[in-house]
């Protein structure tokens, strides 16, 4: 069974391996054991309420209970930019016009901003290659929206995600080559890594502060501003389906877009409903396609669990769970759970 639960220290090896497989470009979870350990510690402190929930880091593991292994991770950073400074470029437009000459020129520009400061970020999505099927990615990503929904007061009204920008197989980013590298004596991967390990002060120290006029950049760099890496297209599609939109901000290094949504408008949040648990011993056919499954969340802050069950388990007031599933979800008969369909049916099926 695949179950979402808070990440724990025993996941470190699995997490490290996934981070190593992901390679460069995943800023928030670089393959650095010490750093990952710190992240897990931070996560534990958050779920165990040793720190203010508004300052927490919420990392969730996708647990393959049969294998006893963490096969995916996803996260929520309750607030960004409060300890460090959080940078983006805002893609902006400048118009210069001369009536006398009949000239009207629009110049897209990049302005260095801290506009996402104190906003909730959804981040750190990693899924083992072997599990990229059957709606597992949806479960791993969307469980966060169920969490945000139930604990809204700890998060900002608006949440955002930074999408990985364009780079080639060697990890070279056209925007970095044209812009960042002119100001930093380092490779894109190195700069990206430094950001991931939490030292963003060097951005303030080395990054250009004045607006960058995009027409001065070469075509290859202009073309990738606001574009995602091809491997990130599915993630972007998923977030767009949830109601996330490009908010005009891009990553300072690779130009990847920032997408954002108000929590109350996220589709998972809007479509979720409550049911009471009814434990049944009658066997259910659990082998159904993602379109026929629902995500079920136990609504616990510190022992958050989410798994999927066949939609057939639903009745108007209750949801029938086997004892095994109820145990995994840590719920008993009569407990309230929150649920939402795992995957929309393809349009043609409706």
């Amino acid at each position: 069974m695949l179950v979402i639960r808070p990440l724990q220290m025993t996941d470190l090896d699995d997490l490290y391996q996934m981070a190593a497989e992901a390679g460069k470009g995943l800023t928030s979870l670089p393959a650095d054991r010490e750093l990952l350990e710190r992240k897990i510690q931070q996560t534990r402190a958050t779920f165990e309420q040793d720190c203010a929930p508004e300052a927490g880091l919420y990392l969730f593991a996708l647990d393959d209970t049969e294998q006893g292994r963490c096969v995916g991770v996803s996260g929520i950073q309750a607030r960004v930019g409060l300890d460090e400074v959080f940078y983006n470029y805002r893609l902006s437009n400048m118009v210069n016009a001369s009536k006398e000459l009949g000239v009207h020129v629009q110049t897209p520009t990049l302005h260095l901003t801290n506009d996402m400061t104190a906003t909730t970020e959804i981040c750190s999505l990693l899924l083992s290659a072997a599990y990229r099927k059957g709606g597992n990615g949806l479960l791993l990503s969307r469980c966060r929206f169920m969490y945000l929904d139930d604990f809204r007061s700890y998060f900002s009204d608006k949440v955002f995600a930074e999408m990985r920008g364009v780079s080639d197989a060697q990890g070279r980013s056209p925007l970095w080559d044209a812009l960042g590298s002119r100001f930093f004596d380092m490779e894109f991967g190195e700069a990206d890594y430094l950001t991931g390990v939490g030292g963003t002060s060097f951005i303030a120290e080395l990054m250009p502060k004045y607006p960058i006029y995009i027409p001065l950049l070469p075509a290859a760099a202009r073309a990738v501003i606001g574009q995602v890496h091809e491997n990130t297209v599915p993630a972007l599609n998923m977030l767009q389906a949830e109601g996330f939109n490009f908010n005009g901000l891009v990553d300072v290094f690779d130009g990847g877009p920032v997408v954002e949504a108000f929590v109350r408008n996220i589709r998972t949040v809007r479509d979720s409903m409550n049911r009471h648990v009814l434990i049944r011993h009658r066997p259910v056919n659990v082998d159904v396609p993602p379109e026929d499954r629902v995500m079920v969340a136990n609504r616990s802050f510190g022992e958050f669990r989410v798994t999927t069950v066949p939609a057939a388990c639903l009745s108007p007031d209750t949801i029938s769970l086997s004892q095994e599933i109820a145990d995994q979800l840590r719920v008993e008969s009569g407990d309230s759970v929150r649920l939402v369909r795992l995957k929309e049916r393809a349009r043609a099926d409706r």
Partner: protein
Amino acid sequence: MWLVRPATHDDLDGILGLLQLAQANPVSSTLPATAEGVSEKIAQSVQALSGAVNPDAGQRLLFVLQASDTGAIRGVAGIDGRAGNGQPFYNYRQDSLIHASHALGISRRVQVLYPSHSLTGLTLLCAFLIDPDLVGTDAFELLSRARLLFIASHRSWFTDETVVELAGVKHDSGAVPFWDSLGRHFFNMDFDTADGHSGALSKTFIAELMPPNPIYVTLLTEDAQQALGVPHDRARPSFELLQREGFQCGEYIDVFDGGPVLEARTNALKSVITSHRKALRASEREDGDLCLLATGTGAAFRCTLAKVVDTLDDAIQAPLAALNVLGCQSGADAWVTPL
């Protein structure tokens, strides 16, 4: 002999002929390229020298180089008493920022171009244009330096600092690397069009179209970076002459072609330091040192080149022909400086 004097309306055709000549070897000049433009420039100068313009408000003066035997106009040169003439005078100021990260042990010098009006209101040498055949000759030096003698002899009309813009790098293909890398994106026109507007129109269009924020030099093309503050090859004789006068490349460059703006303390200019006032005496002597000789004030200003013999008293001896060209009598006051 050569004569430099303030332009009059009668010089219009001569100046237009010169403009046509110069088209074969064009070097950007702030002299307008149209008859209307030149005519207006002459009118401004005539009006200024008639006393109708308060020097503090900025006089726009235009001088011509004339061959005294044929009367042909062979060169033009101007002084704007106050750069910008009451409007902002645009440049980029080259400056550096240090981007340093202590944690990473990185320190990097970042070159930035700041839009600047700092030179607004300073005395500006401008509108220099000479028959290409005369480049590098004594007449070339006379035309350029006669303006400095005018400044020396009318010192209170001008500011304590004097600046000159020199044409920047332009390839034979007509491409202007600095413009093509920067200005073109914002003005949406080619260099010659913009340059033409700059000579002819008010500078409002620069305010409207020029990028308002500083420019990182590293984002310009390699070609454009090479051209920063570098004079056009054909402006090199002027560049060298002005350097000998004491002008120096400062931190300012032209907004269009990136050519250098030279700056000097007016009182430190060679022509100003070495020139002095003497009574002019006609003589038959053929020896002596070749000097610039200027007489008259305002519209009556005349400057020529002649062999001059200095005397121990407050007088100098110059050939009668020189006095004739200057249109003065023996005993007249003259400013004199060695060539």
